[in-house]
């Protein structure tokens, strides 16, 4: 049993445990233990990874393991992690952990909820540990489909419509992706599905790359909320229950960026070079467009969803800059956005649970009655607009500095465009904070609200601590990621 497979095994065992549980208490026990184990595992993994690296292991991936699965297609169950995956695993563990606490009182059908939730986790963890194209795609889809039921059953508002839209659009993305993956496999000689080996072969003809790169990139881009395929995001996030929004915006959208980088760019560097400008424009639009879109919204979740479009756009944007710094920044932005957007959604869920509205026009002065949530919301907002010492800053700055190092003027001008998003972000964040957290209380019913209870505090505090930790001491995570993007970047600038 490979060490990494435990990450997939734990959620599987959680599902078994959930299946055997009879009441909410048992369910929560299973979930808490499982989520804590995952946290511990990712901490252990990080420690082991860093020790191994410090010991001078320079392999591209560590803790590799490989088992033949479907021999005729060269499908292997192969796992391995580098700094990027480790970072993503940490993120996933944090989000899953906090997600459990955020859905402490989920109703109805708690058992089913947690079952689907665990299935989703399987997909997420599997995606990040695998190095095999097929398995990666499989996990990717595993992570998608529970969304439908999670949103459809436990969601709010136009949940059925949103769930359907989200599922179909993401499946559309994965349809593009599948063609891309198969194309990669067959045009690289159909000898291996292993990412690293394909990259080493580096023999996909450029004219084939021209077809498969956009397909793959767009396929992952849909999940990464690439303009104009982002419209599932506002509706989906708005309707999803708290923990699902957290997991989806926090981790699932990262699958897009991670995949675009790991698969599309890594395996098809020539086409990436040729076509980057198209996607740079699209992502540039995403960044600014998402931010402007957020200004006009009145629903908290919509605001945050558009904000995610903007932030995730920045991830893809930075990846396409194809230099080490920008890419490192992109990965850090994934991490940072995951944390803060999860925090946002957690808080929005908690506020919604109390006020029963998410319309910013109907709320105000919550700081007075909900000081803990209020302060946390402000912190989340500050992280989102890139306040130094919070995670958003380090990520965005790395991206901006990195992108600006590009020697081409076009890229630098685009970077400046992207930089402008920090102001727009400030506008909508402050608009919300000023309206609902500060200001006078709008609704006199809100005066009787009670502040966060312990499990909510756990969820929120963990996220805030993580945001602060990353924002204040970015060095180790940045270097961990930085040295892991080198092989990919090396491929790209070869």
């Amino acid at each position: 049993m490979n060490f990494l497979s435990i990450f997939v095994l734990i959620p599987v065992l959680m599902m078994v445990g959930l299946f055997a549980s009879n009441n909410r208490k048992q369910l929560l026990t299973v979930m808490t233990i499982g989520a804590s184990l995952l946290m511990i595992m990712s901490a252990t993994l990080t420690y082991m990874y860093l020790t191994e690296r410090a010991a001078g292991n320079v392999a591209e991936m560590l803790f590799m393991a490989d088992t033949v699965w479907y021999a005729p297609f060269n499908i292997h169950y192969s796992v391995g992690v580098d700094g990027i995956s480790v970072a993503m695993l940490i993120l996933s563990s944090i989000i899953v952990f906090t997600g459990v606490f955020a859905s402490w009182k989920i109703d109805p059908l708690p058992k089913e909820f947690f079952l689907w939730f665990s299935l989703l986790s399987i997909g997420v963890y599997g995606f990040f540990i695998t190095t095999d194209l097929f398995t990666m795609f499989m996990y990717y889809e595993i992570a998608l489909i529970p969304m439908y039921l999670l949103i459809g059953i436990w969601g709010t508002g136009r949940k059925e419509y949103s769930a359907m839209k989200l599922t179909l659009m993401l499946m559309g993305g994965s349809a593009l992706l599948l063609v891309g993956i198969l194309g990669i496999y067959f045009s690289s000689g159909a000898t291996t599905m292993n990412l690293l080996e394909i990259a080493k072969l580096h023999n996909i003809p450029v004219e084939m790359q021209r077809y498969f790169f956009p397909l793959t990139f767009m396929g992952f881009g849909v999940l990464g909320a690439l303009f104009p395929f982002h419209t599932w995001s506002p509706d989906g996030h708005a309707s999803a229950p708290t923990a699902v929004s957290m997991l989806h915006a926090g981790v699932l959208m990262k699958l897009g960026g991670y995949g675009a980088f790991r698969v599309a760019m890594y395996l098809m560097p020539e086409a990436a070079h040729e076509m980057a400008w198209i996607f740079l424009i699209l992502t540039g639009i995403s960044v600014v467009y998402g931010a402007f879109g957020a200004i006009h919204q009145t629903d908290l979740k919509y605001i945050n969803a558009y904000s995610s479009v903007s932030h995730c756009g920045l991830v893809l944007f930075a990846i396409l800059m194809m230099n080490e710094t920008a890419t490192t920044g992109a990965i850090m932005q994934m991490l940072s956005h995951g944390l803060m957007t999860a925090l946002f959604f957690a808080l929005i869920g908690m506020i919604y649970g109390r006020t029963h509205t998410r319309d910013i026009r109907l709320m105000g002065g919550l700081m007075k009655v909900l000081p803990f949530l209020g302060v946390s919301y402000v912190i989340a907002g500050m992280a989102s607009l890139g306040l130094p010492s919070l995670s958003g800053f380090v990520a965005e700055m790395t991206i901006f500095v990195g992108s600006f190092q590009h020697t081409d003027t076009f890229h630098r001008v685009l970077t400046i465009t992207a930089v402008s998003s920090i102001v727009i972000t400030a506008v909508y964040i402050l608009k919300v904070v000023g309206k609902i957290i500060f200001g006078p209380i709008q609704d006199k019913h809100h005066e009787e609200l009670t502040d966060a209870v312990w499990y909510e505090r756990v969820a929120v505090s963990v996220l805030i601590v993580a945001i602060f930790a990353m924002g204040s001491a970015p060095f180790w995570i940045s270097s961990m990621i930085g040295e892991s993007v080198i092989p990919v970047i090396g491929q790209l600038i070869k």
Partner: protein
Amino acid sequence: MDYSSFLQMREEFSLLGVMIFLLIFDIFATENARKYFQPLALVLFAAHTLLNIIPRDAFEVAGGMFQYVPMQTYIKSVLNVGTFLVLLQAHKYLNDFDKGIKKGEFYFLILSTLLGMYLMISSGNFLLFFIGLETASIPMAALVAFDKNNRRAAEAGAKYMFSAVFASSISLFGISLIYGSCGTVYFSDLALIMTNANPLQIMAFVFFVVGLFFKISLVPFHLWTPDVYEGAQTNVTSYLSVISKGSAVFVLFTLLVKVFGNLVEQWQPILWVVTVVSITVANVFAVRQKNLKRFLAFSSISQAGYILLAIISGTALGMTSLVYYVLVYVFSNLAAFGVLSVIEQQSGKVQLDDYNGLYQTNPRLSFVMMLALFSLAGIPPFAGFFSKFFVFSAAIDQGFYVLVFIALLNTIISLYYYLLVIKAMFLTKSENPIELVASDGAMKLSLVICTLGIMVIGLFSAIYNQIAVFGFGI
């Protein structure tokens, strides 16, 4: 005249033995003994399935009229398993219907069609093939009209009969032209003769192949499918949709490669177009269906389109993927039909709206149904995902990128309508959902097998790899 060579046809003879035994038993058994007809039949059939599950070396019988290759054992086993599941699901119905007097006919007819499919699969000559085709379709018409006092079933029987006969007439005409242009109806000889793309041969091929398209129910030869599926008794429908179709796709693949291999330039575009049209049209129709049986009919048409992706590749990879796909399809579709049939038998409800809120009252059935639909839609980790992936791979391997792309876009539509059912069961609240449905032991067994199949087949690669051992096997 050495008849002993016939003994090599083990599958056929063992099936024939079961048939004859059951027929005689049905006719001559006492009223008391007849109670044991179904268990006995099931046991016998299971034994037949198990006995014939090991592939043997290739051989020929009757001067090449009957050709066996090991791959055929797999497809026959798949059909056996499917038939077994159908019989399990029909258990209760047969006991209840008409006080159970028509069990014997049901079994005999089903098994004779199965025998016909065996012949189609193993034939090495158009004559035997045509006999097999007819054996697989004429008794089927009687089966469709099994519930004959039901107007819908009668109507479905007639529709199936006339459509099938029309198709086989055209097919026969095609065969006659093939004979006319090649001078033989032996497959092995034809493959050698049919080298240059003579227009007559091409036309003959088209006339012939549409007969198979009809059986697979590909657009535009599919129009009978929903009507017949809707009207026929549910277990017959499931048999029709799974077994009949499964055998036909295998045969289509074999014939295209074995006989018409030299016309590949011609049949690939045909299949290309038919695949695209089938998947798309079926999906577009399915979106609107309110009756679940019709719904599954259109779904099965589009599934057939996906199977064509494996056929169009015409490679060993495609063959393996095809058999695998059929296997997975058997489990998935039969799970769906099993749920459908148990609910229909108890409550008489087959409309989509009736399924609203099913999860509240029948969580297990809803769960099985959901797994089945997810598998059909190709969602991991269920088996359907793997089978879809493999057929796509097989097609991409031969460079059919655009085709696969179109097929993949269609999966979105198909996902949409599968989700509609899931939505009804899980999301929509209902005032009066279907009450708790109790299924009998046989049905439970079949659903358990199906569920296991859906969950396990994909994750255990041994099955695919085992099929792949015989690669092409034509």
